[in-house]
C-alpha cells in the first residue's frame, strides 16, 4: 500500500488499540505487546545502570577518593555491571526486538509458546525486583562475577538477593531462547526455507542456542554459591577442600558465551540495517548465517581466557588462548561481508545506518583488542586493567548497544506506527559515537599504562586520561537522553508511519504499521530469498506473495 493511503487516515485496528487497560497488557500473550513491556522495563534498568556509571565516572575524575569510599565504589561498579549485563544487555535485543520481530519475520501469528513468553517477562521482572531490593537495601560489592570465596564466605553485602535475582532472570533468558528455537523450527511461513530467512533470525537462533546450553550452568554456579553462603557448606571454600577456580570454570562456561548472547543479536540487526540502507542484498549471506552459528559454538570453547592468571593450569591456558583466536575468524567474516555489502551500494545515511556504521568501526576495535587479550602472554600484562574494561565496552556498548539503538530506530515506525524526528536522530547518533570514543578510548591507554580496574583512587599521572573519559561519559549520557526524549515525544507527535518507510524487504514490512494483533491477515507465502532488492534503486520487490488462509 502507498505511503499516503496509510498516513492520511487513522490507523485501523492494530495490536496497540485492540484492547485497552492495564490488564490487557499484564495478561497479554501477544509477542508485540510483551516486547513493548520488555522495552519499558529494560529502559528503566538501563538508566539505573547508567546512573551507577555516572557515579563511577564522577569519582574517577579526580585521583583521590573524594566522592565515595572504597566500599561504596565496589558497590557502584558491581551494581553497574549486574544491572547492565543481566538486566539490560543480555535481554535487550532478543527480548525487545526479537520478541517483536521474530514472528513477523517468519510470517507467523505469534511465537510458538505465547504464554511462556509472558512468563519470561514476569520472571525477568521478579528477578529485577530482587536485584532492586539488593540495590536499595545497601547494595552488593562482589563484582558482577560473584567470585568465590569472597561472595560465598566474606562479603557482607546482599549477595543472596542479587544472586537470586540473576538466577530467576536466567530462567527468563532460557525460556526466551527455547521459544525462539522452536518458533524458528516450526513456525516459518510456507516457502520460507532456512536460507531465505533474514539474518536477524539466524542470529537469534544462534543466540538462543547459547541461552539454552549455557545459562543453566550459570544457574548451577549461582545455586552452589547461594547454598555455600547460606549453610556454610564447603563447595568452593578452600578451607574445606574446595577450589574457588572451579566456580570460575562454571561461571565462565556461561558468561563467556553470554558475551555472544549480547553481540550476536546485534550482528543480526546490523545485517538488516546495512542491506536496507545500502539497498543491496547482503554480500555472502550464507557466510554470515553460518558464522553466527560458528560464533555460538566456538564461544563455548574459550571460557578459560578469563582465567589466565587465576591459578588455572598454564597448559589449559595455552589451549584456551589458541581457541580464543579462532573466534576472530567468524567475526571477521561478518565484518568483511558487511563492508563488501556497502561496496557500490546506494548508501543512505539515515539514523539507523549511522548507528550501523558506528557499530562496524567500534566492533572492529573491540574485536581486535580482544585478540590482544586472547594472547596469553599479553593478557598477563593487561589483565584486570582498564584495557579490559575498554575492550568489553567497545563490544558491549559500541557493539551491542549501538545496534540496539539502531534497530530500535529502524523498527520504531513498525512498533509504534510513528516516525521519529530524523534530524535529531542523526545528531544524537553522532553524539553517541563521539561521546563513546572519548569515554572509552582513553581507557585503552590507561589500561596499557597499568591502571587496574575496580579501584576508586589512582596515581596523579593518570588524571588527564581519566578526565577525558569522564568528559566523554557526560557527552555519551547526553546522547542517550536525546533519543529517550524524542522517541517518547514521537509517540504522540511523530508523523504517522507508512507500512514500509525504508522501502525495505522483509516480511515485517508487508504488515501495516503498527501490525494487527495476529500480524498477517493472510499467511504470507515466500517465493524469493531475503534482501531481494532490485537492480534499479526503486521500490524493493518484497519477495512475498499472499495466499488466502483463514485465521481463527
Amino acid at each position: 500500500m502507498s505511503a499516503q493511503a496509510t498516513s492520511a487516515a487513522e490507523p485501523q485496528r492494530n495490536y496497540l488499540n485492540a484492547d485497552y487497560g492495564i490488564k490487557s497488557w499484564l495478561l497479554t500473550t501477544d509477542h508485540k505487546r510483551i516486547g513493548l513491556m520488555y522495552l519499558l522495563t529494560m529502559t528503566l534498568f538501563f538508566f539505573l545502570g547508567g546512573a551507577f556509571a555516572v557515579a563511577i565516572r564522577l569519582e574517577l575524575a579526580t585521583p583521590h577518593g573524594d566522592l565515595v569510599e572504597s566500599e561504596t565504589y565496589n558497590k557502584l561498579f558491581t551494581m553497574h555491571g549486574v544491572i547492565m549485563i543481566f538486566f539490560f544487555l543480555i535481554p535487550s535485543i532478543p527480548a525487545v526486538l526479537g520478541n517483536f520481530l521474530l514472528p513477523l519475520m517468519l510470517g507467523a501469528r505469534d511465537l510458538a509458546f505465547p504464554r511462556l513468553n509472558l512468563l519470561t517477562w514476569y520472571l525477568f521482572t521478579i528477578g529485577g525486583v530482587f536485584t532492586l531490593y539488593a540495590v536499595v537495601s545497601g547494595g552488593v560489592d562482589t563484582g558482577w562475577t560473584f567470585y568465590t570465596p569472597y561472595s560465598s564466605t566474606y562479603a557482607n553485602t546482599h549477595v543472596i538477593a542479587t544472586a537470586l535475582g540473576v538466577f530467576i532472570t536466567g530462567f527468563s533468558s532460557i525460556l526466551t531462547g527455547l521459544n525462539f528455537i522452536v518458533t524458528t523450527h516450526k513456525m516459518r511461513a510456507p516457502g520460507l526455507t532456512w536460507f531465505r530467512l533474514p539474518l536477524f533470525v539466524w542470529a537469534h537462533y544462534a543466540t538462543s542456542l547459547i541461552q539454552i546450553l549455557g545459562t543453566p550452568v550459570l544457574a548451577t554456579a549461582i545455586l552452589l554459591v547461594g547454598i555455600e553462603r547460606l549453610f556454610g557448606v564447603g563447595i568452593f571454600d578452600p578451607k574445606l577442600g574446595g577450589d574457588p577456580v572451579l566456580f570460575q570454570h562454571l561461571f565462565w562456561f556461561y558468561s563467556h558465551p553470554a558475551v555472544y548472547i549480547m553481540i550476536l543479536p546485534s550482528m543480526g540487526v546490523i545485517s538488516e540495517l546495512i542491506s536496507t540502507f545500502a539497498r543491496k542484498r547482503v554480500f555472502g549471506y550464507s557466510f554470515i548465517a553460518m558464522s553466527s552459528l560458528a560464533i555460538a559454538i566456538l564461544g563455548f570453547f574459550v571460557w578459560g581466557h578469563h582465567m589466565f592468571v587465576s591459578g588455572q593450569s598454564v597448559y589449559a591456558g595455552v589451549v584456551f588462548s589458541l581457541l580464543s583466536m579462532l573466534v576472530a575468524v567468524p567475526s571477521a567474516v561478518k565484518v568483511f561481508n558487511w563492508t563488501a555489502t556497502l561496496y557500490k551500494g546506494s548508501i543512505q545515511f539515515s539514523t539507523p545506518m549511522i548507528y550501523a556504521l558506528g557499530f562496524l568501526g567500534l566492533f572492529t576495535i573491540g574485536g581486535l583488542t580482544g585478540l590482544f587479550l586472547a594472547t596469553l602472554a599479553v593478557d598477563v600484562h593487561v589483565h584486570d586493567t582498564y584495557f579490559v574494561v575498554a575492550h568489553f565496552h567497545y563490544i558491549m556498548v559500541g557493539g551491542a548497544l549501538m545496534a540496539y539503538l539502531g534497530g530500535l530506530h529502524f523498527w520504531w515506525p513498525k512498533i509504534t506506527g510513528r516516525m521519529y524526528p530524523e534530524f535529531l536522530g542523526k545528531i544524537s547518533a553522532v553524539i553517541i559515537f563521539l561521546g563513546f570514543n572519548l569515554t572509552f578510548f582513553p581507557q585503552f591507554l590507561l589500561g596499557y599504562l597499568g591502571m587496574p580496574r575496580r579501584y576508586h583512587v589512582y596515581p596523579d599521572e593518570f588524571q588527564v586520561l581519566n578526565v577525558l573519559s569522564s568528559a566523554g561519559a557526560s557527552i555519551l549520557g547526553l546522547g542517550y537522553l536525546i533519543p529517550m526524549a524524542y522517541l517518547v515525544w514521537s509517540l504522540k507527535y511523530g508523523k504517522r508511519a507508512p507500512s514500509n518507510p525504508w522501502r525495505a524487504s522483509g516480511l515485517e514490512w508487508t504488515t501495516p504499521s503498527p501490525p494487527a494483533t495476529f500480524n498477517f491477515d493472510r499467511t504470507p507465502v515466500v517465493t524469493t530469498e531475503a534482501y531481494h532488492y532490485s537492480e534499479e534503486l526503486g521500490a524493493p520487490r518484497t519477495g512475498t506473495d499472499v495466499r488466502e488462509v483463514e485465521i481463527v
Partner: protein
Amino acid sequence: MSSHDEHHGASLRTYLVIFGSLLALTGLTVWVAFHDFGSFNTPLALVIAGVKGTLVVLYFMHVRYNSRLVWVFAAAGFLWLMILFGFTFSDYLTRDAAEATVQDVPAWPTR
C-alpha cells in the same frame, strides 16, 4: 493425524523388556561395584549407567520413534556436557604438571 500418532510409541512388550533390562543392569552395576576391576571401576559404572540412560532415552522417551531433529536435540545436551567436562578437566588434569613447571604458583589448598 491421530492415526499417525498411534504408531508413535513403543509396544507394551517393548516397555516391559526395557524395564527388565534396566533392572538387570542395576543389578550388574551393584555387582561390578563389589568387585575390583582396577582402573576400570569408574568407566564400567559410567558405561552401565550410560547404557541404561540410552535405553530410557530411546524407548521410554520415544527418541527412537521421533524425528531426526529430536534426535539432534537429545544429542546436543550430551555433547555440551562433554564440552563442559572436557575443558574443565583440561585444567585439572594438567594442573599438577603445570605447577611443577611454573614456580611460585600456590599449591592446591588443603586443610
